[in-house]
Structure formats: structure tokens, C-alpha cells
């Protein structure tokens, strides 16, 4: 393979660093991931079809996709509010609150899992108020959604913040001076400018929620057909030594995740190009 330089460089270490990067990447990431696809490909089509159409598998995909979607929508709405508050308003303790947004990134998922379960259990701080209303939070799809909302929030806020900061106040002033109301300015000037970032954050939160395990397994209750998420089902199949079943579901999940990654890159590429052609 020939590696083409666009210009000659005096900086040393190209061969060493590129070589090391490729070898390490292949050993740790690419080889193990390809093992998953090879294992799935070695199964017969009937077996793959059987696995995917199994009602328990279908139910878990419905729950994972549905709860992740609802959580990502909640995060898109409230994340926009949080990002707006942090960028536009000043209030005491802002730096602390800004730092705390990253908590779901930093807090180990098992810790978030047991904390959320304790809070939303029928005897918990919030659960005891929901119970008389007939709302079962923990050990139900609602609990799954709550955990996935927790885990996805920073993705929306952190992608929106720079986009909101980059907005040129002059554009809003122009809109106002041309007679636009504040809501009109938001809808027709601010929203179009930050929409790609909002969509990216939404997709990132959705992708993370889809694969999330630790914060969900405690609060979910893990009843087959009802509150069993896809990552847990993969683990269950593995523990039953149903390797083909586990890898087939995992491969479907991976393809979904890669598709989302592609979509996110697509949005960013599109918005960068759009941005350039405007400016």
C-alpha cells in the first residue's frame, strides 16, 4: 500500500505512530468486532430468522427502541431549555450547574441504576407520591424511560451549547428591528440555525440509550416480554450458551448503531457545508 503525502514533512515518527495506531486499533477493536459478524454469518438463515422473529426478541426491541425514542424526545425538549438557560441567562451557581450536566457521563452506570431504582421504587422519595396516583415507575417501561432520559441528557445539552453560543446577536437584532416578535425570531431565525445541533444531540442520546445497560437493568425489573431490554436479552442468551442467538441480536444492534453513527456524521457534514455556503 502506498501512502501519499500531500507535502514533504520534516516531522519524524510517521511510520511508527501510524503503524502502532493501526495494530492497536485492529487488535482491540476491529478484530473482535469482526468476530461478531463472522460468528453471525456462520449461522444458517433459518436460525437467524428464527431468532429475530422470536416474540421475546421482538418485544425487547420494541421496548428498547420505544423507550429510547421517548427518552431522546424528552431530552431534546428539556435539553434545549437547559442549554438555553445556561447560554443566555446568568444566575448564581451557574458554573456548578453547568458542570453537573455531565454527571450522567461521569457517574458509573451501576450507581445511577441503583440510585434511580431506590428513588422511584414504591417506597422511594418520588415513587411513594406516584404510587397513590396509580403510576408504577420502577420495574415498568416508565422506569426504563426514566433511566434512559437520565443517561442521554448531556448529549443534547453539550451539542446545543456551542451552537447557541455561536449565534450572532446581530441576526436576532436584525429580525427584531424588522418587526419580528421574540417568538417569531426564535422560530424562524434561531431554530433553523440550531436545528442540526439539536438533531445531532437527539441522535446521540437515542444511540446511547439503545445500548445502555447498567443504569437500566436495576430499574427495569427485567420481566421477559414486558421490561426486558435488548442488551439484557443478549446477556441472557449468552448465559444460556445460545451463542448464535446472542450474536445475531448483537449484530442487529450493531448495525443499528452504525447506521445512527453514519446519520450523525451525515447531519454534521451537511450542516457544515450548508453553513459554509451561507457564510
Amino acid at each position, binding site marked *: 500500500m502506498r501512502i501519499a503525502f500531500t507535502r514533504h514533512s520534516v516531522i519524524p515518527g510517521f511510520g511508527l505512530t501510524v503503524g502502532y495506531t493501526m495494530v492497536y486499533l485492529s487488535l482491540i477493536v476491529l478484530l473482535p468486532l469482526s468476530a461478531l459478524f463472522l460468528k453471525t454469518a456462520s449461522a444458517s438463515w433459518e436460525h437467524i430468522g428464527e431468532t429475530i422473529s422470536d416474540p421475546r426478541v421482538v418485544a425487547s426491541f420494541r421496548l428498547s427502541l420505544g423507550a429510547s425514542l421517548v427518552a431522546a424526545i424528552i431530552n431534546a425538549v428539556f435539553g434545549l431549555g437547559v442549554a438555553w438557560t445556561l447560554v443566555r441567562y446568568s444566575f448564581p451557581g451557574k458554573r456548578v450547574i453547568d458542570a453537573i450536566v455531565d454527571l450522567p457521563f461521569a*457517574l458509573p452506570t451501576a450507581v445511577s441504576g441503583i440510585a434511580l431504582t431506590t428513588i422511584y421504587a414504591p417506597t422511594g422519595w*418520588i415513587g411513594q407520591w406516584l404510587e397513590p396516583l396509580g403510576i408504577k415507575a420502577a420495574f415498568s417501561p416508565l422506569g426504563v424511560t426514566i433511566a434512559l432520559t437520565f443517561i442521554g441528557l448531556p448529549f443534547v445539552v453539550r451539542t446545543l451549547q456551542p451552537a447557541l453560543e455561536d449565534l450572532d446577536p446581530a441576526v436576532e437584532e436584525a429580525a427584531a428591528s424588522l418587526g419580528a416578535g421574540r417568538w417569531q425570531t426564535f422560530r424562524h431565525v434561531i431554530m433553523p440555525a440550531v436545528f442540526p445541533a439539536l438533531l445531532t444531540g437527539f441522535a446521540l442520546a437515542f444511540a446511547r440509550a439503545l445500548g445502555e445497560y447498567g443504569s437500566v437493568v436495576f430499574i427495569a425489573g427485567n420481566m421477559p416480554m414486558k421490561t426486558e431490554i435488548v442488551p439484557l436479552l443478549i446477556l441472557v442468551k449468552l448465559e444460556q450458551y445460545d451463542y448464535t442467538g446472542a450474536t445475531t441480536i448483537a449484530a442487529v444492534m450493531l448495525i443499528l448503531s452504525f447506521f445512527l453513527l453514519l446519520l450523525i456524521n451525515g447531519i454534521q457534514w451537511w450542516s457544515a457545508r450548508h453553513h459554509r455556503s451561507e457564510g
Partner: protein
Amino acid sequence: MGGTAKSRLAGRRPLMPVSATGDPAWVRWLIGIVSLSFLGLFLVVPLVAVFTEALRKGLGAYLESFQNRDALAAIKLTLAVAAIAVPLNVVFGLAASWAIAKFDFRGKSLLTTLIDLPFAVSPVISGVIYVLLFGLQGWFGPWLAAHDIQIIFAIPGIVLATVFVTFPFVARELIPLMQEQGTEEEEAALVLGASGWQTFRRVTLPNVRWGLLYGVILCNARAMGEFGAVSVVSGHLRGQTNTMPLHVEILYNEYNFVAAFAVASLLALLALVTLIVKAMVEWQTQRQSLETLTPLVPIHQEAA
């Protein structure tokens, strides 16, 4: 200086009409209160709950949880796994960012995307792929068994899974930073006779130190806190292959809530330290970028 600017603005404010880019007061209050309540409900309440539950039976019971042999073994294992995984990914991150930021070559953007790949993989799948390779029924399983080497349900498996999930952290912090800084300073050092290693140590490394620290902190937090991937490859043997998050799970499932939350509170403290260091690093880089805006000539030269 800041004071005069502020008072000048304050003095002018009454003369100015309502700002065209500001929201009406009731909108500000509404958005602010709703957003902050959402944060409080979803982020602050769980964090407070961890410490409240850990201290439910008093400080004595809390501290007693750490006297337990299995808890201590879990803490030790977690520290050991992070001590292997983090340096491995730091070396990789430095190599990858050097290659990607300082050189142009075909396939560069593909390589950058591939480095981010582990972030797109569910933690459970990150564990499963190693079971497929090294498990008893995996590709290398029979060979490993014949040579009496155990990777899955043992510590090497835990290390591998941890390396996988923390793989991109350092690289993805360093690549954009090094790209932004370009190659001019390194070229100058090399032209002046520094060796490649000297250039890296004395020029590149100091330039990226805050980004590197940030990457290490995030990598470490995830390495110590990883649950899903480690849960798949660990045999859940108490006192042997249980990391702290796995030990939390076992205690919680045994209804030993105080002990579970006590171990969890250590992990929560780690998370808080991570957030504080992150905020400090961000503040540092902000200050640095402000400094680079003003004097192009180094101060000591100006004085001379």
C-alpha cells in the same frame, strides 16, 4: 479593569431600550425554572440519594462497609484494572493523535471514525465480542484451554473489555487539539536541532497537557465505573473477579443496601472529582486561549 467596564455598562443600562436579543422576564423565569427543576429532578436527586442511602444507618455502618474483605478486594481490582487500561490508552492516544494531526495521508478521516467506533457499541456487546474470541467456545478458546490460560471470567478479560470501552477517550481529546496547534512549533524545534523525541517531550507534550489531563480523567472515570462490558466477561467471583461496580450490584441484589450504596458513594465521589477537574481544565484552556490572543512577542523579550 473588569470593574470599570461593568460600571460603565450598568450606568448605561437605564438608557437602553429592552434588548432585542433578550427574552421577556416571564419567559426567562419560565424557561429557567422548568430547566433547572428538570436538572434537579433528574441529576441532583439521584446523586443526593446515593449519599443519603449510604449514611442511612449512620457513619459507623457506612465505614464498616469498607472493612469487608470482598469490598476491599473489589476496590483493589478496580484500581489495578484502571492502572493497566488507562496508560495503554494514553500511549495509543498520543500515537494516534501524532499520526493524525501532524501528517496528511490517505484514509485519515476513516481512521478517525474507526477510533470513535467503541463509543457506538453497546457495553454488553463490547463484552460479548471478547467472549466470542477467548471464551471456551470461542475462536481461541480451545488453544487457550490447552495452554491453561484463562482470559474470560478472569482478570485479563476484565482489562480487555475496559480497554475497549475507554479506547477513544484520550485520542479524541488530543486529535482536534493537536490539529488546531499545527506543526510550526515542532518544525522550528527540529530545524534548531532537537531530536524527534525531544520535540515531542519539550514542545508537543506541554502544548497539549490540559487536553491530555482531560482525556486521562475521562478515561479513568469510565475505566473504574464500567459495568456492562465487565459484567459479561467477569465470572462474578466474590473477592476475585469483582470490580467495584460489580460488587455494588451483588450487594444490592442481596438487599444489603447500606453496603451497596457505601461502595457506590466512593464511585460517586470519583465522578464528582472528575467533574471538578473537568471544570478546572476547561477554565484553564479558556484562559490560555485568551492569553494567546494578546501578545505575539513573548513578555521577557518585550522587557529586554
